[in-house]
């Protein structure tokens, strides 16, 4: 076993273990942090495959941006996981059996019998000045320009969907309206009340308050 293989097994184990932790840990913050670890391990595996650009993007985008945002949300909401898990526990035994069976079959099919090292030629290595980023960019804007454009549209739709669902005027919601604040006049807010200390008859303006 050379060093590369050692690293592979190390990160692969970390990836599986942390992924398992994401769905089993009780504390949502811990689960989210486990997911961060999963991404890191994945990025490391990609580095081993000489996919540097993807690995770094994964860390930057998912770990740096998405997961941080996710953690914010998790921390702001007080989620009671115990309640969510009620039904989950009931089905757990059957679920575990089915999951194990499916995993077993997957391992059998995807395992060395069909995807062993001897089945595929080793990819050609590249020299140190080879730019992964440049090559990706080249095919992305030529051969894959059509899927690339569609992906862009998907993101646009995601933005529209998110905004249209989140941004709305609740009748009971409280919000500021600077327009109205500026346009306010004295008479809207202030009322001069004539004070009549002697309590003359016929004048009860003071009571109107």
């Amino acid at each position: 076993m050379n060093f590369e293989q050692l690293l592979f097994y190390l990160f692969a184990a970390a990836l599986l273990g942390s992924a398992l932790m994401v769905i089993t840990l009780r504390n949502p913050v811990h689960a989210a942090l486990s997911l961060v670890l999963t991404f890191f391990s994945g990025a490391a595996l990609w580095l081993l495959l000489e996919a540097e650009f993807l690995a770094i993007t994964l860390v930057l985008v998912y770990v740096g941006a998405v997961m941080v945002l996710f953690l914010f949300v998790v921390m702001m909401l007080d989620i009671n996981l115990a309640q969510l898990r009620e039904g989950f526990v009931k089905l757990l035994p059957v679920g575990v059996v089915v999951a194990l069976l499916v995993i077993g079959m997957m391992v059998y099919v995807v395992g060395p019998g069909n995807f062993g090292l001897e089945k595929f030629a080793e990819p050609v290595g590249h020299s140190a000045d080879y730019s992964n980023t440049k090559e990706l960019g080249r095919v992305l804007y030529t051969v894959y320009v059509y899927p690339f454009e569609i992906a862009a549209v998907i993101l646009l739709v995601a933005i529209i969907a998110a905004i249209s669902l989140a941004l709305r005027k609740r009748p009971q919601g409280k919000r500021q309206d600077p327009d109205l604040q500026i346009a306010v006049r004295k008479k809207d807010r202030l009322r001069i009340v004539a004070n009549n200390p002697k309590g003359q008859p016929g004048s009860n303006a003071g009571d109107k308050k």
Partner: protein
Amino acid sequence: MADNMQNIYLTVALAPLVGAIVAGLFGRFISRSVAHTVTIAGVAVSAALSLYVFKHIVIDGGEPFNGAVYTWMVSDGVRFEVGFLVDSLTAMMMVVVTWVSLMVHIYTIGYMHDDPGYKRFFSYISLFTFSMLMLVMSNNFMQLFFGWEAVGLVSYLLIGFWYKRPTAIFANLKAFLVNRVGDFGFLLGIAAVLMYFNSLDYADVFSAAPMMADMTIQVIPGVEWSLMTVICILLFIGAMGKSAQVPLHVWLPDSMEGPTPISALIHAATMVTAGIFMVARMSPLYELSTTALTVVLVVGSITALFMGILGIIQNDIKRVVAYSTLSQLGYMTVALGASAYAAGVFHLMTHAFFKALLFLAAGSVIIGMHHEQDIRKMGGIKKYMPITYWTMLIGSLALIGFPGFAGFFSKDAIIEAVHLSQTPGAGFAYFAVLVGVFITAFYSFRMFFLVFHGEERMDKHAREHLHETPWVVTGPLIALAVPSVVVGAIFIGPMLFGDFFNGAIFVSPERDVLGKLGENFHGWFAFILHGLATPALYLAMAGVGAAWFLYMKRPDIPEMIKARAGVVYTVLEHKYGFDDFNDKVVAAGSRALGRLLWQVGDVKLIDGFVVNGTAKGVGWLSAVIKHIQTGFLYHYAFAMFVGLFALIALFVF
């Protein structure tokens, strides 16, 4: 040119449909006069174009048209199409149908003047004209069947037009049921054609038929039947229903419950002749089966003779004409059976004119008599209704085959053809048609004398109001009287002995009786002279004479005969017992069987076990399965995983 003609054919068929739709669906929004104007205009367009088509095909010798207008669907290589086959036979039928229909449309303005269902009536008769045109213009069995059923439907609607009368409802139900029997045979026949020829197109079937001539099939295991005989007889059963041949004739007399214009149009001139037309159209098939021709011949001669006899004892003016129609349809059928298709169709044409004339004239009498139809309460009407009198006389003379009138040529040709025919059963048929001539003359003039001559037997009130009918009634009478006189002389040469029907009707040489007859044919006038030497004319004269003697001179003799010949009279009174048999055996038997099936089969087995049982079972199952849909997301996801697992387990390992 072909496209042009195709458009004309389409217009001929569709113009009456447009009229029917306007008057039928939008009747609420239009006035009575608009309704009749639209429908008459539609039929008039058809009639004018039909004449043009007739000129194009027959006189100018244009190419017959055979083509699909619209392909409805193609299934298993069988094309279901709407298409037209327009040759001389079709062209002739188109002219007859549209012109008689036009006359009837006009006549209806007068006859139905006070009827609340005025617009409905116009809609129906236009719809009928459309259906009949689809039937005669068809180039395939599917459209033929469509037209066949459509005319049946309209006939049903019109017989029950006065749907508040229980007798009318009974009559239309009867017509409907009896025609179902015929249509069942017809449909089986078409199915057999489809099964063995794998096509519904006339041309395909006719060209393939000679190869099938010797084919036999086993309908009942162990019994070999000729395929052609089976197909032809099945199709003829359809014709028996539609053209009222014994024993499926029982609906036609009762159909007189409908208004008189439709009796003229549907139950005399056009629809009832659809069966005759169909057999003539299918002549390439019938020529392949002597057995089928014999059946046709015998059924026709029985109808011609025995239905005529019943005409003698009828007292309802329309029923007399109805029985004469039955008898004449028998003549046509006899002609078909004797392979003299052209003679049958020729008689169909002349009959259409003079029988429509007789019906309309009878209708005119009925209008004059304020809807009294009993001839015993008439008499001496001649002086009140001269136009009706003379036209009725022309019609009657044409009917009995008085020399020179249209009916003479066609009927004499049939009698001569049967005389020459070698088809088994021809001997009996010849006897039947000869005796039929006497009987026809007798009952026709019995009615004629009773209605128009002799003492006035109507009550005083009726007599005061008796007067000639308006021009919309008499106009069509005169218009129909003209062809009733002349069409025979004009067309006998080309139609029977010329090449009029070449390509439309096929007769095998050894059965070509008309061809043999034609060897001695030297023009229509010679035909009349020849007619003077045949027994038919003298039998007819004897019939007229007997009618005059018995009903004008010695009216006491019929009464005496009636009293003496009790048994015979009772048999006739009961119309040979067909109706009683149908009522007591067929109908009662069906009802008993129906009740049995209903109580045991339906209520217990089907309703109790199959329907309610399965419905309950399914309902229960449904309520159980409904609970699978719990609404919980993880149940759904779990179901998906189980599905995935099952598929992998089944297909990968």
